[in-house]
């Protein structure tokens, strides 16, 4: 559609900024590089808002927002039907993602002007931020699954580069490597999934896949492996890619370590945007999942539910504030995954609520991106002030950092699910969807919601209340470049819940009026308040109750503190088993057996030639002797035969 012709600038501009900053950045001053990056992103943000405004004010066709593809050109043709195209696809969820990404990215750009002030590699930092923004935007507007895979890899790489930003720090290097390899492993599943899916359906195109014109079930009919149909394999493997990026159990291990990156990066990549790519992927292929492979959706629910509970438990005992937030992110993304998983149909109207989870998931993605970015940026301001990530170095900070305190509190109330903050509305829809599926999932997720309220307020009280730590110099409020993004996101967090989200994003595209189910909402508020009350009782005033609590559940506490030893298991498998029992023996085999055989052949040849060289001695006498004996031998044989 022609009105969206300018949309390519949204992708082109960050790419150009990356190239400019990457090639010429070292010649610019910090200020120029920062302003260039930030102003570029400001333009992109404005454009994204214009796209959103135009898109959502377009007249609906049969009550549905049309899917618009302003650009789609052939990039690489594999076969006649399998073509990688690069293009831009605008539909309600991709437009929503454009808004989320550009908003958070802009806030992070502004915030970083203050946070990264004076760091070496400042220009490089902005170059990588631009690269990330480009890749992430490319991912959400992908018109086909292969384009998504391309940008999927690119966001992975930019995440790698940003986690390892402080490359002289050993832990940062290790964390970046771990993040890349774990997600790469998941991407292997994604790739095989894409290969399977495209093999059966003969297309990469999202529209063809989701509008019902090709049916995976029909094309893959009759094929199965290990008792699971080929269609389910394909979709489950694709979900594996999503699970890796979204840090779902058991592929979650990279995300807590990824906190080694600069804090604004954690806010942008590892809280608000890249980690929800998995959710977005499932949402993108939602019609395929819900109509053709409901068994995979069941699997997704289980994975999501386990992750949500696991991450929430672990978050309750961590002492590094960024790790608490990291596990909270994992848990919240799991909420979105569960919401998608519990869907039973595309319907969302007065008769059926089967698709409620889809809407709830996208809504939570939106609100979560805002308040989680706020939490991380707040954490960044705190770390900036006290120069430590550990809770023990904090306490009583409310007096010194009033703005950070208030905005952090707002975000905590939002994530805990207290009305009227945004998190309440979206989480409530997720719980309603879970209860719709079955009471079991509803209760499970409500329990996790209670834990969320508890660990967030444990964090809050430990930072801003509790015992005041000894500070070498008095902590002070962050500069304006850092507080303005905090205030902006706090305002969004206060009001985002009132957005009539159902009017914009629903599985079928038909408008839906969100109405609160007060039984569910009441329960969830009650649970949240219990969680907060418990945290208040334990952590608001300095006391020894937390220690006693921990002592009474010593083993659980230790296990949770060590994240149930999953890192150790992975380390054991990769280092001990793969390196020691696969790689090293193969290298040995190559050196000693394969190469040994070659050397043996050479040695044998040498040995043989050494021993027969006597035949060519050059002495006439020995030639004469050999000649004589040879002649005699021939004569003897001839005589015998006669």
């Amino acid at each position, binding site marked *: 559609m022609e009105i969206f012709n300018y949309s390519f600038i949204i992708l082109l501009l960050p790419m150009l900024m990356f190239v400019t900053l990457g090639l010429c950045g070292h010649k610019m001053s910090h200020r120029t590089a920062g302003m260039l990056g930030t102003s570029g992103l400001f333009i992109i943000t404005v454009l994204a808002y214009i796209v959103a405004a135009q898109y959502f004010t377009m007249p609906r066709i049969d009550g549905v927002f049309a899917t618009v593809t302003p650009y789609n050109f*052939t*990039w*690489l*043709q*594999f*076969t006649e039907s*399998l073509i990688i195209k690069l293009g831009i696809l605008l539909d309600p969820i991709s437009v929503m993602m454009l808004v989320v990404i550009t908003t958070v990215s802009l806030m992070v750009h502004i915030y970083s002007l203050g946070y990264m002030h004076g760091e070496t590699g400042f220009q490089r930092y902005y170059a990588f931020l631009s690269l990330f923004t480009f890749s992430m935007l490319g991912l959400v507007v992908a018109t086909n699954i*292969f384009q998504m895979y*391309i*940008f999927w*890899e*690119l966001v992975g*790489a930019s995440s*790698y580069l940003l986690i*390892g930003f402080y*490359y*002289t720090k*050993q832990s940062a*290097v*290790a964390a*970046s*490597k771990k993040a*890349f*390899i774990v997600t*790469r*492993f998941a*991407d*292997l599943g994604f*790739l*095989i999934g894409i*290969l*399977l899916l*495209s*093999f059966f359906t003969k297309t990469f195109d999202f529209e063809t896949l989701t509008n019902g014109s090709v049916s995976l079930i029909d094309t893959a009919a009759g094929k199965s492996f290990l008792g699971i149909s080929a269609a389910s394999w394909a979709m489950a493997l694709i979900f594996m890619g999503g699970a890796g990026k979204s840090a779902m159990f058991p592929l979650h291990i990279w995300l807590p370590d990824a906190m080694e990156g600069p804090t604004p990066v954690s806010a942008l990549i590892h809280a608000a945007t890249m980690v929800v790519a998995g959710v977005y992927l499932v949402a993108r292929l939602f019609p395929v999942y819900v109509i053709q492979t409901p068994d995979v959706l069941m699997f997704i629910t289980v994975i999501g539910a386990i992750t949500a509970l696991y991450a929430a438990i672990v978050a309750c005992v961590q002492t590094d504030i960024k790790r608490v937030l990291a596990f909270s992110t994992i848990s919240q993304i799991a909420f979105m995954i569960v919401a998608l998983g519990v869907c039973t149909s595309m319907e969302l109207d007065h008769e059926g609520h089967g698709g409620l989870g889809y809407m709830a998931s996208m809504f939570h993605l939106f609100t979560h991106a805002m308040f989680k970015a706020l939490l991380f940026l707040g954490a960044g301001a705190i770390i900036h002030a006290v120069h430590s990530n550990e809770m023990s170095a904090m306490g009583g900070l409310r007096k010194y950092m009033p703005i950070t305190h208030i905005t952090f509190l707002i975000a905590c109330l939002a994530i805990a699910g207290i009305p009227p903050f945004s998190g309440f509305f979206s989480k409530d829809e997720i719980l309603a969807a879970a209860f719709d599926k079955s009471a079991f999932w509803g209760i499970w997720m409500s329990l996790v919601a209670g834990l969320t309220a508890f660990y967030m307020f444990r964090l809050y009280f430990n930072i801003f209340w509790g015992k005041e730590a000894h500070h070498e110099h008095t902590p002070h409020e962050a500069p304006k470049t850092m507080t303005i993004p905090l205030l902006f996101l706090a305002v969004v967090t206060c009001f985002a819940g009132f957005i009539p989200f159902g009017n914009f994003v629903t599985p079928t595209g038909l408008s839906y009026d969100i109405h609160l189910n007060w039984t569910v909402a009441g329960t969830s508020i009650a649970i949240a308040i219990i969680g907060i009350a418990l945290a208040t009782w334990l952590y608001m005033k300095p006391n020894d109750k937390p220690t006693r609590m921990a002592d009474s559940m010593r083993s659980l506490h230790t296990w949770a503190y060590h994240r149930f030893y999953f890192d150790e298991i992975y380390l054991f498998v990769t280092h001990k088993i*793969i*390196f020691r029992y*696969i*790689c*090293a023996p*193969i*290298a040995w085999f*190559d050196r000693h057996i*394969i*190469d040994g*055989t*070659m050397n043996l052949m*050479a040695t044998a040849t040498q040995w043989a030639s050494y021993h027969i060289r006597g035949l060519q001695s050059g002495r006439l006498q020995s030639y004469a002797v050999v000649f004589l004996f040879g002649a005699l031998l021939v004569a003897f044989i001839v005589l015998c035969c006669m």
Partner: protein
Amino acid sequence: MNFLALFVLIPLLMMAGLFLSKEMKMIRTVAVIGSTLQLILAVAVLILFLQERAAGNTAEMLFTIDNPIVWYAPLDIALAVGVDGVSVAMLLLTAIVVFAGVFASWKINPLPKEFFLWLTLLSIGVYGFFISINLFTMFMFYEIALIPMYLLIGVWGSGNKNYSAMKLTLMLMGGSALLLVSILGLYFYSAPEGGELTMNILEIARNNAIPHEVQTYLFPLAFVGFGVLGAMFPFHTWSPDGHASAPTAVSMLHAGVLMKLGGYGCFRVAMYLMPWATSELSWIFLILTGISVVYGAFSACVQTDLKYINAYSSVSHCGLVLFALLMWKTTAMTGAILQMLSHGLMTALFFALIGMIYGRTHTRDIREMGGLMKIMPFLSVCYVIAGMASLGLPGLSGFIAEMTVFVGSFEWTDPFRRVLTIVACTSIVITAVYILRVVGKLLYGTVQNEHHRELTDASWWERLSAITLIVSVAALGMAPGWIANLISNSMSVISERIMQYI
């Protein structure tokens, strides 16, 4: 005379110029002018080729000569030339790598004149191989490319160079012995009963008269013969030692171009001329090359010498080339050629960078280095880019090559090939492991050796060499469409030939 002969003539003139030059400056001038001319020529051939194709010339090989220059009539040995899309791409690759190689050996010492002479002779062999369509001439150029290698490693190499040079030469010569047998066999069965025997590849293919039982034993000979150069398991062990000892430009040319001769020969001689045997016997080699892919990658994970890591990674990547060729669907074969191009460029880049780093630190052991990013940012950034290309980051060449191979191989429905394809896919993870391991150890972290702090970053010729290759890697990775079309048009002919036998 055909203008393709310029590919041999220019290097010959270059050699004459080198022979006459006395001082370093002159040698460099000749080398730079020569390699630039080659690059221009390769681009010109590409443009002419595309124009001819656009004009509707659908002949299998273009720019052939009607009356080949006969050298020895009884055996039909003649200088017959011609190119299709694949050869054009290969010629371009060679020209780029030679160009970058000249700048990478700017300060070669000792005997710069002799070094460039042998290097040029090597490039004659490579160019000649890609333009010939006469089996014997092809073989001759193949040998011309191999022999200088012995001297280049033996004289200018490092480490255990005598052993490596001898091993490399002997193993590759062993391969060419098999090759010679199969070429003669192909010649004697090239025409139907009573017809005129020929060495011309196009004519042999047109006759398609080689009896099936002959193909059964000639195919393995030819495939293994070329496969040795393509580093096929278990004939790959010359590669780690050879690369480790070779001087920078030789490693670049060897891994970047010479190993491609193996893959090119495999499909041009073995598969194209013996389609029946290909369809019958490819499963054996599929297993071997499938092993190469993961085996090489796993081996690379535990090496500590930079060149060994890259040599094993080459085993893995070149294994994927042969693997994809043996899948003989047009898409997979196109992927194989893309992988050749991609591997050629990025390995040349890798070896160039390793040479530059080694020239400064005098060690290639990753345990003795660290934090180079702070000391030599330009080289380090290039190394990261090369690594990203190797592990298949979209936008660089590795990604499109691997994806084309995987999508192409996935067109098969039988469980055997499906399983092998999935096994080959796992290499993308293992590659990430060994690449990031090196990058993390070598470039990031803290400086291991305090003396390294005084080292300088790249000089202009080193920068030029690296940038040439990076630009090519990025160009191939970002706009792969046209070159993929170019290749797949030529590949579909070969694919269809084999397809008729299943």
